[in-house]
């Protein structure tokens, strides 16, 4: 009886081995492909964030000169920004709580090693003589510089 049972089960170890192998291969292969994809995405994201961080810390710029004059009775502020860093930057300005250019999604691009006149800032109210204007220039990467200008 026992011998007969053993004889009947003779094929099952092979099948079980095949099933076990197939299971290990399919699960293992699945994990392999998944982990490869996940780790590729993770490493790419990490590298990209590091590149962004590198560009952020590489930004170097100054407000080189500021002057103020009336054009057709409108007070205009002229701001000159020099990008002395190695990466191109995009900037906006903030004067007396108002940001420029007027369109919120508009940024002024300044290539590396270039000084540009910021588009003329039309002040809404005429500043008083000797009034101090705090000019803030900030970049898309959230770096900023300040300049204190005294109206003549």
């Amino acid at each position, binding site marked *: 009886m026992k011998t007969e049972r053993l004889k009947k089960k003779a094929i099952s170890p092979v099948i079980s081995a095949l099933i076990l192998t197939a299971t290990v291969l399919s699960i293992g292969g699945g994990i392999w492909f998944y982990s490869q994809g996940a*780790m590729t995405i993770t490493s790419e994201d990490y*590298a990209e964030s*590091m*590149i962004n961080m590198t560009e952020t810390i590489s930004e170097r710029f100054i407000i080189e000169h500021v002057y103020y004059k009336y054009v057709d009775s409108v007070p205009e502020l002229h701001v000159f920004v020099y990008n002395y860093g190695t990466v191109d930057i995009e900037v906006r300005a903030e004067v007396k709580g108002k940001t420029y250019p007027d369109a919120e999604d508009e940024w002024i691009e300044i290539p590396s090693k270039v000084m540009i006149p910021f588009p003329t800032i039309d002040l809404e109210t005429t500043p008083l003589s000797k009034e101090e204007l705090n000019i803030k220039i900030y970049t898309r990467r959230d770096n900023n510089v300040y300049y204190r200008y005294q109206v003549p």
Partner: protein
Amino acid sequence: MSIIGTKCHKGTSTIMGTLIFVGIIFTAFIPMMLVMKQADTIYDMRKHELARFDEERDIENLYVYVHETVTNPLELTIEVENKGDLSAKVVSLWINDDFFDLNQLIPPMTGIKNLGSFNVIREIGMEYIVMVTTDRGKIFVFDIPITWTINGWETPIVSIEILIEHLQGSGEFKIDITGPECREAMTQKNELRCFTFTLPGAYTVKIFRGSQLLHTETKTLDFQNKPLWRVFA
């Protein structure tokens, strides 16, 4: 028999599982770590480069001199002297709100270099401030405002700046300035001292250590051409 067979199958699965695990380590995990490490290395390198760049910017030291042009008294001659240890490139010049684009390399320790003669819109009584910008983003300003008058370019004061760098000995040095106005002061090495005078004329600077005279120089200062005299001893 069946016991040996089961062990054998378990062994095969274990080996395959291990191979897959090792495969994941070598084809996914290690490359990911390498990419991350490389990104970190690039970031650190850039950080060091920027720190060096900022340090170079800090030690940039240009002196700006302004006086009327001898051949054309309407214009201003701008000169610079690089007193730093590194070459500096002057990229822009501002005379009040007038901009001049420049591209001049100023090597260190090569004396005064002429940037040129510049014509600006002149208004009687207006003070003109001159500043230059280097490619490292540092701005240097001429210390004394220069005014356009009916007599030409003038400065309200004459001044003498004294820096003791090379004289032997340590401790305090005595500065003795004689001329239309006189001054006496004590100073130390590498300490910049500035003296201003309202009277132009011939001034003599003497530097003593104790009672020993170490250095003496004489120069005539006037409002037009030589309002600022820098003495390096």
